[in-house]
């Protein structure tokens, strides 16, 4: 295993896209130490900012408050990357495979335009999680993002495939212009959920403030949910059993016009 511990107090962001199994695994200790990182405009060696133990490995642990460290795990295709602490913007952006776990909080653009792999955040996440970058036609196109805490605005913006599950509440515009895939909101969202969505599914276990351009279709318990429920349960995100209630299905966004669906959980009235 390779362990890197942040040793400097960062005032400006440090861009460290080299913190990825694809870059680190093939390298020996000394080569890793010499890798370039960017502190603002200045290029530094990785070991100017990190204490590094071990040689290149598919198993990497990065420790410390990395809130200002950006691009960790950028475009990684394999291996396991564990962040013990917080992580900065663009964690796992363009990721294709492998797994990232964060024990603390992360900021914006987590898993931006990712196409595969798994990201699991124990703390809170920022905005634009799994989203398309500005102007891009599609956001996340595969893989999954699981967040135990809250998340910010525009999560899953223009996502095409894949799964996002957030245990805490999220802010505005979840699933904005969504084209496919699934977003599970265990604690609901603020407003404008699913705005301008084309296709895809948003599941909320809490009542949602829906856009006026969504139509209520029917109540049901779709069979595909069973597959998701099983998968999510394995990660500790348990959907309530069908015996306890059902989902009300809303279709929209009529402004597109889109055929996205928002499923809102309705427990059976307590007896």
């Amino acid at each position: 295993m390779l362990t890197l511990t942040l040793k400097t107090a960062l005032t400006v962001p440090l861009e460290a896209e080299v913190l990825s199994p694809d870059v680190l695994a093939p390298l020996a200790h000394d080569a890793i130490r010499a890798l370039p990182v960017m502190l603002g405009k200045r290029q530094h060696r990785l070991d100017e900012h990190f204490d590094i133990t071990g040689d290149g490995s598919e198993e990497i642990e990065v420790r410390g408050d990395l809130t200002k460290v950006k691009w960790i795990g950028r475009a990684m295709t394999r291996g396991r990357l564990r962040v013990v602490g917080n992580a900065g913007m663009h964690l796992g952006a363009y990721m294709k495979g492998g797994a990232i776990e964060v024990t603390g909080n992360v900021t914006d653009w987590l898993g931006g335009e990712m196409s595969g792999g798994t990201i699991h955040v124990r703390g809170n996440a920022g905005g634009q999680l799994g989203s398309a970058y500005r102007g891009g036609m599609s956001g996340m196109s595969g893989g999954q993002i699981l967040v135990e805490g809250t998340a910010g605005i525009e999560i899953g913006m223009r996502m095409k495939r894949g799964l996002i599950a957030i245990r805490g509440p999220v802010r505005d515009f979840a699933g904005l212009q969504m084209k496919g895939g699934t977003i599970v909101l265990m604690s609901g969202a603020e407003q404008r959920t699913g705005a301008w969505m084309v296709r895809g599914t948003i599941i909320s276990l809490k009542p949602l403030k829906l856009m006026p351009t969504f139509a209520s279709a029917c109540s049901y318990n779709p069979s595909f949910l069973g597959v998701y429920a099983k998968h999510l349960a394995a990660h500790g995100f348990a959907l309530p059993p069908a015996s306890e209630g059902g989902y009300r299905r809303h279709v929209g966004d009529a402004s597109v016009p889109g055929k996205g669906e928002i499923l809102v959980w309705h427990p059976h009235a307590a007896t």
Partner: protein
Amino acid sequence: MLRITGGKVYDPKNGVRGEIRDVCIAGGKIVSDVPPHARTIDASGMIVFPGGVDVHTHVAGAALNFARGLIPEQHRKSRPIFHTPQCRAGLAGSTPTTFATGYVYAGMGWTTANEAAVPILSAKHTHEELADTPIIDKCCCVLMANNEIILDLLETAEFERAKQVAAWQVWAAKAYGVKAVNPGGVAGWKWGKDCKGLNEPVPGYKNVTPRSIIKALADIIDQLALPHPLHIHCNNLGAPGNYTTTLETMKALEGNRAHMAHLQYHSYGGDDWFTMKSASVPIAEYFNAHPNLTCDAGAVLFGDTVTITADGPWQHLLYELTGRKWGNLDVENETGCGVVPYVYKEKNLVNAIQWAVGLELLLLITDPWRVCLTTDHPNGATFWRYPEIVRLLMDREFRKEQLKHIPEKVLSRIVLPDLDREYTLSEIAIITSAGPARTLGLAQKGHLGIGADADVAVFNERKDAMEMFSYPRFVIKSGQLIIEEGELRNSIEGSQFASKPTYDSAIEDYLRPLFSQHYTMSFENYPVTEECVHGLNVHQCGSCTQPG
């Protein structure tokens, strides 16, 4: 001072076809000899070309800059130009930044470019961008075929006054030539309409038709003796079956000089998108028989780009066809433009035909002096992909190889598989430099004769033309060594050419009241002043000739 020695020189204008001889440079010009102490570049094993001249490109101005704002996702994938002490930062994607444009053109041995579409109202903007476009020399064409002051005068048959206005406008925009885009159609588009046929009146007019606009402007340009003939983007761009409109347009021009821009987009047969086919043969036949015409290819290459034209109706159609983003920008009383990001796909029937038609025209037009290599940058492909086209023209086998990738059902709708012609290096020098320089009327460009501007590109002689022309070993611009051993060593500022036709300044008294009625800025703030144009080089046009 500089001597390039030992290279095979291609200078078609002066009849030099690959002879090993010295090219000498002093004071920014080609000279007969330089003293022995002058720096010598050993060009053995290399070929020496006059710097490339782009007759039709979109590298600056409001429309292009509008497009830049629309495609951040393409910029992110583009080639970064890093800031260095010699070089300003930028991006070289489908709409390169100003500095990148200069570096990238020069970096492939092209040293002059004609920005093909400038509205007068924002000409100051275009010139600001051109001033920030280093190394290359520039000129531009002002848009006129939808200018309502001109159209109104044609409506009332006031040709002489229209000519005075046109002359005034060319100088007001500090333009070099005049371009007609979808004559009448853009004016119609402002009401959401278009002009399809040449003989239908333009929406909002009774007497003005696309045909009358084309004929009048061609007469005006010839009578004003502008160095570059009327630059025409025909009606019905991109539409299946549009070749008849193109033939009609060329016929309407008999007796006038004209440059047919991006002819590829105007050479389609068929009735709709499903039956679309190449019509390069009838177009090339007519064109070959009419020496009053020149053209540029507007060739298409497969890949990502963004389309920008003053042809608003076409752009709206493209948007509806692709469902992608669309931007439109109309300019009061003068013109408009549309912007749609686009991907040309090998497997797409229409795109494959477009790709073939561009190459077919280049191969079917017999006189290389009258056809210029362009992609209507960035519409058909970005200009930095020109070397790919050169290879396709020079290498029949490579062409055959490429034909295997397009859908088989396309093969019966195109003639490219039957064309065996291969361009020679001399012919490449003509379509990339000597020809466009002649078409533009830039006597000092496109050749290596004594007194010519010392714009020279030196390439390693290679079998693979694409490799050869992508990375020049040396590029000299205005006598300055810019690219050395394939690297940018030095950046200089280029000049801008403008034409000054003669006109009676009394025309301003006619324009002023019209202007305050129809425009929203002061007449006095409308013309681009000479101080605004970097390195202004004025071509004084001969006296205004009378018709007949």
